[in-house]
């Protein structure tokens, strides 16, 4: 039982459930208390002691079900058709001198075959499978362990000396069926035990891939990654809203607190500073390749709502509109599509966009506001309206310009980024998820 539970734990870790050593010890004790007889109870018990978030619970339960899922091992024969034409097949006396596997097959001993398969899987260490290319090799080894060579010899013997073509044919059929089942078994082992490794490799790569070159099929995974990263940032910054200023006595509150001691200050209370949550205004370019990055920036910001006092988002290409409402009402992906429809793929005109922005929101920018501008600053040689950016710069707490282009391209062609740079607190290149995360974490830090 211990070995089985350990395998299950390993599979669960692979599925992304975080399990510490102490927790696995607890799980063992808990399992001992409830016993192993009832699968549903065991499942509840292990879920209670191992998985500590809702997502973990779902992952663990899926893993548990997969782990204990067993197909019945069959011999590839339809039981109804076999019994009629070969009534003697069920009698063990017929198959003297055959290997155990062959007799099991001929007797249609499903339980025996299943047990043999489990035993073989254990013996060859099937849970060590880690790559999908290993499936066939492991399946073959498992069959070998079960006694496939002997079965082959039996077939040869039956065909040769015993001249029992019918039985040989049945064995041959069973051999093929067993092969297929062994492969299915190993494929399941692969999903159970290798999920962790492959996922880690894939996600590691995704964090560093350029967002504009992202494959469509990776979107879901990216979305999960963003949510996870944002959650980390949010928990770090959403709580501490007060910072003690050591050294400044808060006389009023100290006196109150110590009234019970005749106002002798046993307990001193220090003045605290309230830490303001930042208000963020995000201006996102939604044209062409920049749109991909905008999408992730918005996803990030909207996953951070807890840690922010407010977010207003604006989308622009050749003119600018506020999209906060659209984003609040819908899923990010739908929203982005709708925004695209409205703002469209016009050629960028930064000057006009800043003018629009100034009209909508300039008066709302104050010392708590962080303005994030996302764009490549390629304004098609239109007037860049530096004066407006300067005005934003003077009013806001911080202005951060995120440019999806690599730094080597800044200032080339119609890029105005170097001119805007003097009116930004920070200009950063933000091609990948990791860069984006770092920038947002820094922004939260600076606001503290």
């Amino acid at each position: 039982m211990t070995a089985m539970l350990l395998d299950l734990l390993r599979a669960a870790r692979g599925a992304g459930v975080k399990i510490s050593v102490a927790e696995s010890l607890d799980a063992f004790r808990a399992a001992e208390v409830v016993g192993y007889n009832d699968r549903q109870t065991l499942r509840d018990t292990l879920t209670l002691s191992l998985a500590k978030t809702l997502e973990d619970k779902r992952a663990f339960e899926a893993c548990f079900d997969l782990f204990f899922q067993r197909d019945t091992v069959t011999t590839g024969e339809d039981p109804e058709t076999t019994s009629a034409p070969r009534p003697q097949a069920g009698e063990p006396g017929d198959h003297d001198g055959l290997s155990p596997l062959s007799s099991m097959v001929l007797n249609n001993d499903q339980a025996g075959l299943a047990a043999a398969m489990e035993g073989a899987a254990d013996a060859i260490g099937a849970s060590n499978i880690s790559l999908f290319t290993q499936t066939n090799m492991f399946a073959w080894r498992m069959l070998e362990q079960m006694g496939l060579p002997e079965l082959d010899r039996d077939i040869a013997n039956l065909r040769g000396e015993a001249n029992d073509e019918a039985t040989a044919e049945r064995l041959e059929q069973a051999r093929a069926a067993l092969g297929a089942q062994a492969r299915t078994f190993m494929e399941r082992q692969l999903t159970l035990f290798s999920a962790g490794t492959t996922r880690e490799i894939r996600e590691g790569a995704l964090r560093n891939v350029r967002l504009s070159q992202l494959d469509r099929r990776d979107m879901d995974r990216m979305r999960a990654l963003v949510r996870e990263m944002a959650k980390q940032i949010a928990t770090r910054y959403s709580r501490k809203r007060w910072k003690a200023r050591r050294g400044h006595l808060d006389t009023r509150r100290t006196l109150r607190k110590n009234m019970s001691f005749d106002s002798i200050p046993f307990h001193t209370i220090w003045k605290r500073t309230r830490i303001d949550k930042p208000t963020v205004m995000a201006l996102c370019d939604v044209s062409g390749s920049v749109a991909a990055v905008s999408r992730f920036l918005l996803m990030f910001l909207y996953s951070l709502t807890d840690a922010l006092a407010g977010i207003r988002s604006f989308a622009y290409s050749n003119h600018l509109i506020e999209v906060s409402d659209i984003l609040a009402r819908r899923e990010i992906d739908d929203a982005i599509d709708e925004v695209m429809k409205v703002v469209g793929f016009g050629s960028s005109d930064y000057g006009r966009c800043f003018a629009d922005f100034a009209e909508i929101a300039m008066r709302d920018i104050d010392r708590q506001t962080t303005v994030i501008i996302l764009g490549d600053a390629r304004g098609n040689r239109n007037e860049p309206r530096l004066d407006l950016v300067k005005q934003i710069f003077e009013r806001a707490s911080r202005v951060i310009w995120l440019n999806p282009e690599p730094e080597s391209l800044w200032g080339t062609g119609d890029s105005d980024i170097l001119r805007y740079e003097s009116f930004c607190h920070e200009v950063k290149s933000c091609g990948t998820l990791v860069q984006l995360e770092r920038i947002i974490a820094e922004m939260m830090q600076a606001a503290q």
Partner: protein
Amino acid sequence: MDTQFSDQIPTIESVEAGLARTGYIPSRSISTALFLAMRLGKPILAEGPAGVGKTELAKATAEFLGLPLVRMQCYDGLDESKALYEWKYGKQLLYTQILKEKVSEVLSKDDSMDAALERLHEFDDIFFSPRFLEPRPLLKALQEPRGAVLLIDEIDKADEEFEAFLLEILSDHQVTIPEIGTITAKVPPIVLLTSNNTRDLGDAMKRRCLHLHIGYPDAKLEERIIDSRIPGIEISLRKQLVSFVQQLRGLDLRKLPSVSETIDWARAILLLNATRLDTEVVQDTLNLLLKFEGDMTIGGRAVGEMTLKARREAGIET
């Protein structure tokens, strides 16, 4: 491990039956969690939306085991002196005033300062003895002679420091008071922590607990709950109510109605003497289920259709 409950609750089924007797209908995983908590002496961390019966579970457990319930509500700024113990400063001051003469009388026999100090030392801890100790919920729970059910409500509202402070109590069932020493529970309390998930709890905390997620019940369980809370209700009406609420949970609402709202609503419907759901009754009482303006608009739009479906599911011709 812990054998104190072995006789009272030999199996998971007995927990289920025991809770049901107090009017709390648990799901299978709730009773498994409680069973394990009692057997292993581990705290339960119950998470889930508001109103699904997290706090109620503690009350029901206390009632079923016949133990006192000690409840501690967490909030931002909660500290040891409010959660664990405090010295009765007033009483201490009062006593020093009253005993002033006595003290000078005792000390008057000594001539030298040293001797007086020495004598004072003999009474050293008189003012820092259990007599002047005001036990707060945590200490109270440890001191209960027969054990207790300790409910630490909304742990996510307290700050991280307090969470760390709880660890000693949760794992060793003991607390340390500098002036007196370590106080260990004679009978470890059954601890239930609840959280509404406004923030992620620390891993250290989660590791020590059995993590129980209580979600919205399925229709069958919810019917049983309604039946146990409002015994007189007609089966067909109950079916309609539950079906309606279950449908409501499928909508895209800001705050989904939970069990406690279903119960309130069922009571209201009974008070209105309605025997079956119709659009009018539902519209009038919808504010018991939905707590936000926006939700009311969304819910209100679907009322007609959902009422029809609820009636159909309860087998009433429309």
